[in-house]
């Protein structure tokens, strides 16, 4: 009876043990290496600081095959160069904050953590972060080494708490074949909103009364256009520097929201019910899409049939203060960390110039180091060149929140596009909610 089933399980277990003992892959050391190689080995011979300590350093970041492989490579070379033992955990993105939250509460969190730049101030306000010591880098050194966009959100009162990583800009992707089919020139950037809107309409196709090709894919990316456009429409970005309240409940903000939602509600360029579950652009069923720079690599893997090119996004507001928005994460050191010196050393290694070359070449990232922006050897690929050019003029998406802020902005969009609410009402409601959110975080001065 149940003895038999237990027996069956024991047999299976023994068999599994025998098999796994024979051919164990990647076991033994404390590194998490379950990433199948996709874009090449993490062949980092990153130079940088000479590491001195022997204590362990734990490091958590969110999972991506390419980036995990890169970190693994760095861990080996760091160890060979005499650096600390790194305990690396690559956590699936959707569970990242659950894991982090639980660990912070128990005090069992990592020494080095990757957090979005947007919530660095919040973490600091909660006392979770260790300030960057002067010996590692002074504020002046930070500001002369890294681009302003990548470090704007990383300082609190002039003191830096993290080093930038995973820089992305939001760029416009064209489906070149669909452009040509619609009689449009896929080599040009759009110079005005109206030009762009007309192209979007031209690229839209209907069949039997419903959408069969979206002019612009407006709904399937982690960072949405309706985050970045309001940021660009205001001088301070999304959040007023002094009052720490959002800017977008303004004439400029309303215009941006009206234009973006108008593409759906008035021009019918996209629909939430059209291809709700798949990437429209990746399936070749959208003329354009606003995407993070890293999709250059993602599409090559998932949509090899799509002939695409990368461009600067069109201006959405009548007056834009920058052409492009950038987003970034940061490596920060936990206040709970016992080996803070080791942690900072490791971070310096990870963000050194050589390391960044690897991140750029193999990880789909953009540089945060000013020195690399001018390096032409990196920009032979035209898509990469566009990314770099965009970065030079980018401003950071600066909301003070992450999923909580995204939820509010998604609600604004859904209220207008799906719920039929008028733009101003929805935007005002969202702005009020977001201001309330910021206040509750205690980062409002």
């Amino acid at each position, binding site marked *: 009876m149940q003895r038999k089933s237990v027996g069956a399980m024991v047999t299976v277990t023994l068999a599994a043990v025998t098999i796994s003992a024979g051919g164990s892959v990647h076991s033994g050391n404390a590194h998490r290496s379950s990433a199948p190689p996709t874009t090449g080995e993490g062949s980092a011979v990153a130079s940088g600081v000479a590491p001195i300590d022997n204590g362990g350093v734990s490091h958590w970041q969110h999972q991506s095959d390419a980036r995990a492989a890169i970190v693994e490579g760095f861990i080996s070379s760091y160890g060979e160069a005499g650096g600390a033992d790194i305990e690396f955990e690559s956590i699936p993105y959707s569970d990242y*904050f659950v894991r982090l939250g639980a660990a912070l509460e128990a005090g069992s969190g990592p020494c080095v953590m990757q957090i979005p730049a947007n919530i660095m101030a919040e973490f600091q306000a909660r*006392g979770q972060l260790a300030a960057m010591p002067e010996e590692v880098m002074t504020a002046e050194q930070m500001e002369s080494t890294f681009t302003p966009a990548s470090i704007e959100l990383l300082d609190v009162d002039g003191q830096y708490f993290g080093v930038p990583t995973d820089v992305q800009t939001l760029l416009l992707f064209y489906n070149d074949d669909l452009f040509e089919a619609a009689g449009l020139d896929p080599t040009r950037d759009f110079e005005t909103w109206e030009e762009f809107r007309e192209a979007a309409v031209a690229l839209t196709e209907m069949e039997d009364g419903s959408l069969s090709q979206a002019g612009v894919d407006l709904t399937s990316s982690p960072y*949405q256009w309706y985050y970045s456009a309001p940021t660009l429409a205001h001088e301070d970005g999304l959040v007023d520097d002094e009052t720490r309240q959002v800017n977008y409940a303004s004439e400029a903000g309303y215009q941006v929201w009206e234009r973006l939602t108008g593409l759906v509600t008035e021009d019918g360029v996209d629909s*939430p019910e059209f*291809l709700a579950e798949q990437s429209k652009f990746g399936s070749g069923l959208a003329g354009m899409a606003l995407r993070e720079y890293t999709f250059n690599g993602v599409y090559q893997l998932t949509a090899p049939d799509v002939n695409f090119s990368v461009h600067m996004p069109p201006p959405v507001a009548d007056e834009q203060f920058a052409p492009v928005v950038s987003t970034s994460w940061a490596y920060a050191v936990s206040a709970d960390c016992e080996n803070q010196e080791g942690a900072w050393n490791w971070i310096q290694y990870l963000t050194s110039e050589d390391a960044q070359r690897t991140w750029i070449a193999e990880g789909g990232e953009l540089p945060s180091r000013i020195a690399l922006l001018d390096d032409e050897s990196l920009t032979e690929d035209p898509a990469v060149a566009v990314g770099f050019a965009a970065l030079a003029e980018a401003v950071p998406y600066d909301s003070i929140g*992450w*999923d909580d802020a995204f939820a509010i902005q998604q609600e604004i969009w859904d*209220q207008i596009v799906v719920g039929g609410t008028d733009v101003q009402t929805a935007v005002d409601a969202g702005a009020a909610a977001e201001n309330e959110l910021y206040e509750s975080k205690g980062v409002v001065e």
Partner: protein
Amino acid sequence: MSSPVRSGGDALTGTAPHRQSRPRRRLTMRTRRTLWAYAFLSPALLLFGVTVIYPMLRSLQYSFHRWPLGRAPKEFIGLANYRELITSDSAFHRAVTNTLFFTVATVLPTVLLALGVALVLNSRNLRARGFFRTVYFVPVVTSLVAVSYVWRWLLEPSFGLVNTALGWIGVDGPGWLSDPQWALEGVVAMTVWRDIGYYMVIFLAGLQTIPKELNEAAALDGASPWQRFRRVTVPLLNPSIVLASVIGVIYGLQLFTQVYVMTGSPSKLPGGPLGSTTSVVLFIVQSAFRPLEMGYPSAAAMLLFVFIIIVTMVQLKLLQRKFDY
């Protein structure tokens, strides 16, 4: 342990004469039974104490505080969380109505369909019984990742099979997961599909307790199949029916995973368009892990808990029947 001697003691065991002459033994018979009961219960109770009761009490504690996860200081705020949830959090209220709708809409059809399937599979002269049993159980074991992927495709408004099939019979299919009016129904459909096999297993096990002779005897007495079903099967199946509905409601009210996998994606936060699929537990999880704070979600969890207890007690009272064998 000085319980008075009770004449009659345990009505079930006739006390043998020689026992009456040893009053001490009779005194402790009931106590012995109680002790044995607790002995059988103790491993479970001990483990519950550690893994459930203790965390529950901690959650209760959190609910009276602002409890940021990590190093930030915790602050006692009394009933403030509860007040806000009950009086002013419309997202919470919406989550409650969503969850109630979902529970009723899934438990009823699932239990009925599962009962039907179990009865058919239990009937005489059915071949390939084992095959069908396994097939109906397959959705329960198929990984949720794969299930949600397929179901999201099935419900896809423009290309999905469901709307295409509806189109064949002239019905204009709704936007399903993209439509605030229909998203929850989509989650319900997937859940019913998945859970039928689960409850089928419960009923199959329960049907085994009904000796075939009873049904045969009733048939010989001239009872029709429907009468046999009503008078013999259903009453004797009562324990399984109680189990299925009580468990179904308890799990239904704690809806989370299906919503999370059906409505969440890298580009869209879960909870369905305009909060139409946000369940209470999803609300709790989002209230906990976005701001990294436990006080507010714990209060919501306590409210949910109280509600489930009440509903369960009512159900047990209404449904449970004791039978003598």
